[in-house]
């Protein structure tokens, strides 16, 4: 909200000079919006897929706000507009492909973001790669503003003020367990793992089961719409609703899935990839022929071997092992 300090007229649009008088323009950051009414939208549009909730909120001072949100009661406090997510701090652990992708998505949507990395020497590289990603979809001014939302640390204790921490370390059960355990000790907030296949109930730190969920983003994070929201028997409904709302605010389409190895996508994908590898081993067809056949015959955008090279052979191997171990245990 922009206001003339002299005549007190107000604008929603960014202006530099008052057209009525010579007063200075000041930008007021408004807060404390409470939901007045909401509507459950069941028939959507091309831009907004239904179902979702449309909220009308006000701050009791002439200013109203329209927002997409989750099913919240009248009077619920919601966070307000423009740089609307600056009040929430999200921690991202890991600075690999997924960690950087998720951090960029968060910052691009105005979330204050703390990236936790192991290596002090990587801090500059992380900042540079995030700056370069942001500058592709933002002008110079906004890139500059957004990169200020980023903090990089090597210390788990710096994650204490976070409202949500997303773990994105390598797809190794024991490493993930150790990291999540550490997060549960240094924070009180929701803990999410970006694991692509390991059951959340296996990863949940003791005593923090009711605040641990799975948030499985897909690579490349800025392009892939889907987030698998994984719930266990200990996950409260409230947490799932918040997670859905959070994903929507990032422009993603969340799908809730019950905890199980590989969730939805990788459980089906790995069967296909495994069979594709077998076919090459048995000399039935070449990688290229299989890719072409799947694209033309099933109308897929990519063939199985193109997917393997996109995800990374090491990650595919880790996922296959997780699924196989789970099957053996059963």
């Amino acid at each position, binding site marked *: 909200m922009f206001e003339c300090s002299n005549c007190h*007229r*107000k*604008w*929603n*649009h*960014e*202006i530099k*000079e008052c*057209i*009525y008088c010579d007063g200075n323009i000041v930008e007021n950051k408004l807060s404390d919006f409470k939901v007045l009414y909401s509507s459950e939208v069941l028939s959507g549009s091309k831009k907004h897929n239904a179902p979702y909730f449309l909220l009308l909120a006000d701050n009791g001072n002439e200013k109203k706000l329209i927002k997409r949100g989750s099913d919240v009661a009248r009077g619920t406090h919601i966070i307000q507009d423009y740089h609307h997510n600056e009040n929430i701090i999200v921690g991202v652990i890991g600075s690999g492909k997924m960690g950087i992708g998720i951090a960029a998505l968060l910052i691009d949507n105005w979330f204050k973001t703390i990236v936790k990395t192991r290596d002090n020497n990587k801090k500059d590289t992380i900042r540079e790669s995030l700056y370069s990603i942001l500058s592709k979809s933002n*002008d110079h*001014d906004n890139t500059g503003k957004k990169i200020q939302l980023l903090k990089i640390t090597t210390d788990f204790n710096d994650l204490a003020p976070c409202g949500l921490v997303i773990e994105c370390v390598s797809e190794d059960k024991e490493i993930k367990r150790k990291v999540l355990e550490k997060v549960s000790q240094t924070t009180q907030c929701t803990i999410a793992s970006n694991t692509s296949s390991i059951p959340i109930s296996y990863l949940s730190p003791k005593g923090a089961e009711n605040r641990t969920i799975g948030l499985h983003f897909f690579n490349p994070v800025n392009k892939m719409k889907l987030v698998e929201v994984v719930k266990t028997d200990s996950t409260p409904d409230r947490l799932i609703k918040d997670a859905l709302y959070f994903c929507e605010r990032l422009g993603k389409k969340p799908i809730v899935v019950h905890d199980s190895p590989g969730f939805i996508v990788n459980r089906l994908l790995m069967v296909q990839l495994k069979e594709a590898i077998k076919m090459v081993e048995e000399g039935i067809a070449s990688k290229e022929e299989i890719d072409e056949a799947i694209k033309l015959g099933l109308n897929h955008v990519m063939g199985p071997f193109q997917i393997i090279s996109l995800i990374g052979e090491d990650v595919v191997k880790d996922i296959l092992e997780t699924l196989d171990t789970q099957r053996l245990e059963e």
Partner: protein
Amino acid sequence: MFIRGVGRTKFGVLREQIPQLMYEAILNAKKDAKISVEDIDACIVSNFFGGTIDNQSHLNSLIASLLPGFDKQSIRVESACASGGAAFNLATKLLNNYENVLVVGVEKMTNRDVSTVTDALASAADLRLEQDNGLTYPAAYALIASEYFDKYGVTHEALDRISLKNHENANKNPLAHFYHKKVTLNEIKESPVVCSPLRLFDCSPISDGAAAVILSATKSSERDVEILSSEMAVDTLSITQREDIIKMKATEKASKMAFNKASIKPNDISLAEIHDCFTINELVSLESIGFCKFGKASDLNTSITGEFPVNTDGGLKADGHPIGATGVAQITELVTQLRGEAGDRQVKKRAYGLAHNIGGSGGSAVVTILKGNIYV
């Protein structure tokens, strides 16, 4: 009828969005007019494809957000590339009922791929007869150029000179899209073909920008410029329905009416703003308005220091062509010149100025004649 104030933004690739562009132009016009917002009785917004490209229509209501407290009549006008001229024309009619009318034209065109913009622009052409068969505007004017060359034996060299002249004028206009760009005749001649025979330097650029004008029924200062006439006419939407594609009937009709009403002749005009969306259109339009015989426009000396200056701001070619703003910006240039406030690009003679703004391939046309304050 008088023009009391004018204002505009820079034209070009700008970071500002529609509301900021409109606000800046209105603010500048309001300062120039030395009028208070409360004294504006009505508003007309001119915009072509905010609805198509940004899904933002209803810009006449946006005025109330930009001018807190303004709750009077506000209309949005669309007539393709003649939207600005049509809005200005309508404002002159509203002066029968109101004392002060604000006209603001705006377009946000950049930041999307050229093919999207080309399609949106093509929406001004006949859907079934033209668009469905591959007509885009560069292509339409390429056909017009081909016939013009064929009929009058004029060569592309005439178009190169128009392009160079308009770029040189833009180098004297700090608000022009190509203010900083120095262009050589060689660069123009060797630029890539867009739609043969038209090359890149025959085409106006894709620009963002806004322009505003405040019209008043009565004169309030010596800087006010009198509106002698503003007339509008239409022709068939598709060029396939016209007898002769290089004679612009809507332009001819609007010009005839405007000269009659102003009681002056074409050779009384000191300077003109001509709708050069493509260089060929500067020639065709000068002839259809009646400044010279058909086929002879390239013989006119139209530089700023020449006998008959045309497009002193750089024209659509080099000042820029933010569609909804273009027709309004033409008026701001004429007013600036007629007041003698055009600085480096000031013309000598400033008795009468003419603005010519057309939609599509000439399906609509507005011709406005203004009278200078000083007779030279």
